[in-house]
């Protein structure tokens, strides 16, 4: 039945990158050659990834739509499905359904400065936006990335962080939580919201994008408010538990808002209007 909305596409794991303890990325290509050519998505959209025999898990698409021919996902080994995915090797087959959900309105941000703020495993969805914007670098003003993790080891995309840090058209501020630093650590020590406040990006003509643990997002939104950002210019992506991804299974809703259908990308203004169901 070609209209089976629960039927995943088969994808091959083309490459695996160890990002941090228990965190890895897969570079995936569709088995179906035609789909490989035509598959398109927008930055911020997500998918359901299958480990056959164990089930499906929801992650964002961590690669940028400006990079064609493959998708990347990044996940932390934490449950049954991600545990199963962690045991797969290059060349193995898994499943993918998507893309689902809405996206970051990158086209509306032309001419604006961008500030990306992420914590821990919250960087993958933001990475998609960062690369999307870096691949269209001339369309945007200043780009700032504030990224923190619990420890130095927990920082994901270490090679890319170095690349962003080396570029003179990106301002990268890295941080680790107090106690998470190593003797060699060159970055900041502190929590992301505090580090963001110290970095004090200008709010004028600037869009902020944030993702991380719920508690971090909460304080990042406060910090941005203090810095003068209006709620309409602050975007986040809500990563609730999902099973179907298409508005049917009933678990991702925040009050009356179905994150899989009406999200996962929201402005802070929209988040503040939601029922307190986080």
């Amino acid at each position, binding site marked *: 039945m070609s209209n089976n909305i629960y039927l995943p596409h088969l994808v091959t794991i083309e490459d695996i990158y160890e990002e941090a303890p228990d965190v890895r990325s897969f570079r995936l290509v569709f088995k179906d050659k035609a789909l490989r050519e035509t598959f398109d998505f927008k930055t911020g959209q997500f998918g359901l990834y*299958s480990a056959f025999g164990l089930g499906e898990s929801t992650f964002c698409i961590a690669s940028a739509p400006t990079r064609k021919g493959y998708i990347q996902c990044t996940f932390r080994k934490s449950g049954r499905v991600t545990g199963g995915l962690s045991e797969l090797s290059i060349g193995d087959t898994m499943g993918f359904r998507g893309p689902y959900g809405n996206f970051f309105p990158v086209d509306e941000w032309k001419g604006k400065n961008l500030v990306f703020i992420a914590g821990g495993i919250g960087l993958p969805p933001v990475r998609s936006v960062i690369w999307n914007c870096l691949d269209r670098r001339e369309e945007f003003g200043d780009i700032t990335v504030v990224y923190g993790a619990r420890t130095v080891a927990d920082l994901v995309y270490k090679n890319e962080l170095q690349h962003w840090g080396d570029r003179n058209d990106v301002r990268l501020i890295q941080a680790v939580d107090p106690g998470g630093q190593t003797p060699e650590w060159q970055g900041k020590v502190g929590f992301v919201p505090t580090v963001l406040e110290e970095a004090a990006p200008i709010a004028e003509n600037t869009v902020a994008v944030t993702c991380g643990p719920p508690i971090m997002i909460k304080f990042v939104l406060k910090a941005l408010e203090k810095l003068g950002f209006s709620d309409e210019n602050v975007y986040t992506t809500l990563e609730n538990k999902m099973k179907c991804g298409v508005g049917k299974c*009933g678990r991702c809703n925040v009050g009356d808002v179905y994150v899989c259908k009406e999200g996962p990308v929201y402005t802070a203004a929209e988040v503040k209007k939601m029922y307190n169901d*986080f």
Partner: protein
Amino acid sequence: MADRILKKENLGKLVASVNGKGGRFIAPVLDARQVVFKDVARAEDIVSDYILARNSYKEYVFPQTEVVADFTVEKHGVDLKSREVEARETVVLGARPCEATSLSSLRAIFTWDYIDEFYTKREDTLVVITVACTKADEACFCTTVGLSPETKTGSDVYLLETESGDYIVETMTEKGKAFVERHKAAFTEGGAKAKALVMPEKIGTIDLNKVGARLKDKSHYDDQVWARLTRKCIGCGACTFVCPTCHCFDITDEGTAFAGERRKNWDACQYDTFTLHASGHNPRHYQYQRWRNRFMCKFNFYPEKFASKGCVGCGRCIRVCPVRLDITEVMEEFSR
């Protein structure tokens, strides 16, 4: 046109006609001393003296468990096969007018932009034959949610019981007309006097508009009222399984590491793992938050999002609840 009559002694003919033409006949029967919807082969098994079947007939359009795909994991890849829904005439006799309205709510969810054909193909071939209520119990509250035994929406065929145990037949939809035509040997013409219908008394202290308005005002989410009213809920999820509009499900794989099935299984928003994140964070950590979600789903999400009823007032959740948590008491609280 003269009324069509479905005589009690012709029920067997109807059952045989449906089953004989490759269809499936569902009706209330006794099982473990409870009246439940089940497949019927003999008309003698059909129970006519009941208020509502314990289960909702939603399981015939949205099965408790169903395979959506089969897979085998091989050395050089995965062989994945989609499942096709076997669409055949399925007849539910003995639905009540309240629950007959639930299918439009389920359909709204299962066709919300993405069409779930596992649901739609079944619903397309489902014939709902309602028998209007001549009895009610304390748990019935259809009149409080704007329905009644006289409600005909959602029924393909609407039956009125007569004094002699026969049925006066009214076809409500094209599907219903086609059904009667296809099995016309079981129907006769003539007149008869219907038994009086019994209307559950409307709960005067409940005003659905007030409930809706209170729920729309988001401040109630942090109100102690939820914890106070629903503290005794043990999270068994029974209310969701018997509810004709509850639609939540899980998608899981079953089998071995080499071969198995991907299944869609009923799930319940009342379970603690339902919304639990991999990180350990749970947006609905406390039971009252889960109960609040279900109530919101019925009286806010469904009406606001789909302009359909989230609650049909069948009262099954009240009858089945092991701690006697009565949804109408919460409705009353939110009518104040």
